[in-house]
């Protein structure tokens, strides 16, 4: 008999499990935990949206839709993007409805990355980017957004990472985990490098609706960038629809055609009832989205001011629902801080280093939790800081 070999592909074996997993396991078994570790809204999907999905089931909309998604939904997405962000995409040939923004990132990468191509991944970032680059056969090249600049990447840092194999730059604004919002000038700096070296930008804009201080500028709205941007977005965050798994991706016709090829073979189409729900969200959801945005903004302000008062320096992030305070003054590493805080005060946060090297020294605190819970969390973190000082 032959010795048993591993059946797993080398690519998968080499992918590291997410560092978030450990904290999930630690926190899951505990009673009375206040979690600031949640990467999704605390709001339940607006009732009118849930009701529209129920109605679609009652009416028997239970079959496949077109591969790219219901045409009516793509039309609504097109008109929403045009009104909200001055973006113009053809619903017939440039928009694909996907299973969450996650699948959108996957098909975007797989449609443009060849074996050995490099994709620059700006960190700290969502944990899936680099693994998905690897799974697409590419090589992720992490670059670190400097903390001194509020985690905004510079053109110099990007340029240093460019090689002849570089195909694309992956960015996310507003950012998970830092909350950093890239303003027009910041995007222009990235665009400049993309144009100079003929690169694509894969722009994850899933938190676009949750921008608090000024309006939101999309990478695709920067002069000359529409043709080299793959825009990733969806309904999970702004519309509080994470569990529906519904996102979309917009790109020029040629790239969209390639993505659609992968999508039709690998996924067929996004879930039909979720598409009906999304239609209602776009048609009548604006007021609820605005209510949620205002509520997040209040909580952001509260958290930023509370952390700074506690002596953990914290910049005021322009979007998403995370604050990213520095814990360097405590002398602990991110992991140590998060673990001790959880065990001693039962507050769950995510250590910043799981999102990339430059996240070390920071913790991600989600404020997608009621203000009462946030107040209690701040109180507990305060007493934790007192304890470790003495």
């Amino acid at each position, binding site marked *: 008999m032959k010795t048993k070999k591993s059946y797993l592909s080398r690519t998968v074996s080499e992918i590291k499990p997410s560092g*978030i997993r450990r*904290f999930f396991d630690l*926190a899951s078994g505990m009673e009375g935990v206040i*979690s600031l570790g*949640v990467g999704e809204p605390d709001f*339940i999907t607006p009732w009118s949206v849930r009701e529209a999905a129920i109605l679609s089931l009652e009416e028997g909309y239970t079959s496949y839709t077109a591969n790219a998604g219901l045409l009516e939904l793509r039309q609504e997405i097109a008109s929403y993007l045009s009104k909200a962000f001055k973006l113009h995409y053809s619903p017939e040939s440039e928009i694909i409805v996907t299973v969450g923004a996650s699948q959108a990132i996957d098909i975007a990468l797989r449609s443009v990355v060849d074996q050995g191509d490099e994709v620059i991944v700006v960190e700290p970032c969502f944990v899936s980017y680099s693994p998905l680059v690897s799974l697409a056969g590419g090589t992720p090249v992490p670059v670190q957004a400097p903390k001194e600049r509020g985690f905004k990447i510079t053109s110099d840092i990007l340029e240093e990472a460019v090689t002849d194999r570089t195909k694309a730059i992956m960015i996310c604004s507003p950012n998970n985990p830092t909350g950093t919002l890239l303003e027009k000038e910041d995007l222009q700096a990235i665009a400049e490098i993309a144009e100079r070296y003929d690169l694509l930008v894969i722009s994850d804009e899933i938190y676009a609706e949750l921008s608090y201080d000024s309006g939101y500028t999309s990478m695709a709205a920067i002069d000359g960038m529409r043709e080299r941007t793959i825009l990733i977005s969806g309904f999970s965050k702004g519309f509080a629809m994470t569990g529906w798994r519904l996102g979309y991706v917009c790109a020029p016709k040629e790239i969209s055609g390639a993505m659609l090829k992968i999508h039709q073979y690998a996924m067929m189409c996004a879930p039909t009832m979720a598409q009906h729900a999304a239609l209602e969200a776009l048609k009548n959801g604006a007021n609820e989205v605005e209510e949620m945005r205002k509520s997040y903004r209040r909580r952001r*302000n509260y958290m930023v*001011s*509370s952390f700074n008062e506690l002596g953990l320096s914290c910049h005021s992030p322009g979007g998403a629902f995370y604050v990213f305070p520095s814990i360097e003054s405590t002398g602990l590493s991110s992991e140590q801080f998060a673990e001790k805080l959880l065990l001693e005060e039962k507050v769950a946060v995510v250590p910043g280093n799981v999102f990339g090297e430059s996240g070390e020294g920071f913790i991600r605190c989600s404020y997608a939790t009621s203000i009462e819970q946030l107040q209690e969390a701040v109180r507990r973190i305060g007493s934790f800081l007192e304890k470790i000082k003495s």
Partner: protein
Amino acid sequence: MKLTEKEIEIIEILEKNSRTSNDDLAAMIGLPINETEEVLRKLEELKIIVRYTSVVDWSKIQGHEGVTAMIDVKVTPKRGVGFDDIAKRIYRFKEVKSVYLMSGAYDLSVIIEGGSMNEVARFVSDKLSTLDSVISTTTHFILKKYKHDGTIFEPEEEDKRIVVSP
């Protein structure tokens, strides 16, 4: 009266929770504490914030369950004062919690709270329907309050999210 966005936000926060401390209020809207207190004083003086109050579920307190009735009242308006005169005569009774002038099949909607159905019935027959301008009354007793002033009385739905997620 036009208010700034931050002033409106203060009102919205207090309307949901009037016990929000001034410190938290200031932090949430991003104003210094003294300016926040200044705005509060102004809103109170202008009677935009009329009163700080609580939503109470009396039905939970034994012996204090009480009854609430909504009464549709038809009246004859008076020359010169329209409905205001009769509305005033009605809202001055302390049993009366709200009085609204309505469009449609009747004129005034009157909400009354009392200790028992008898108490409310007595008020309607003795005080309300005997008023000169009142033509007729229709009394509806509230059987159960599901949602009151934007607040759902059933316990909040629990958080169904997983504790830590990317």
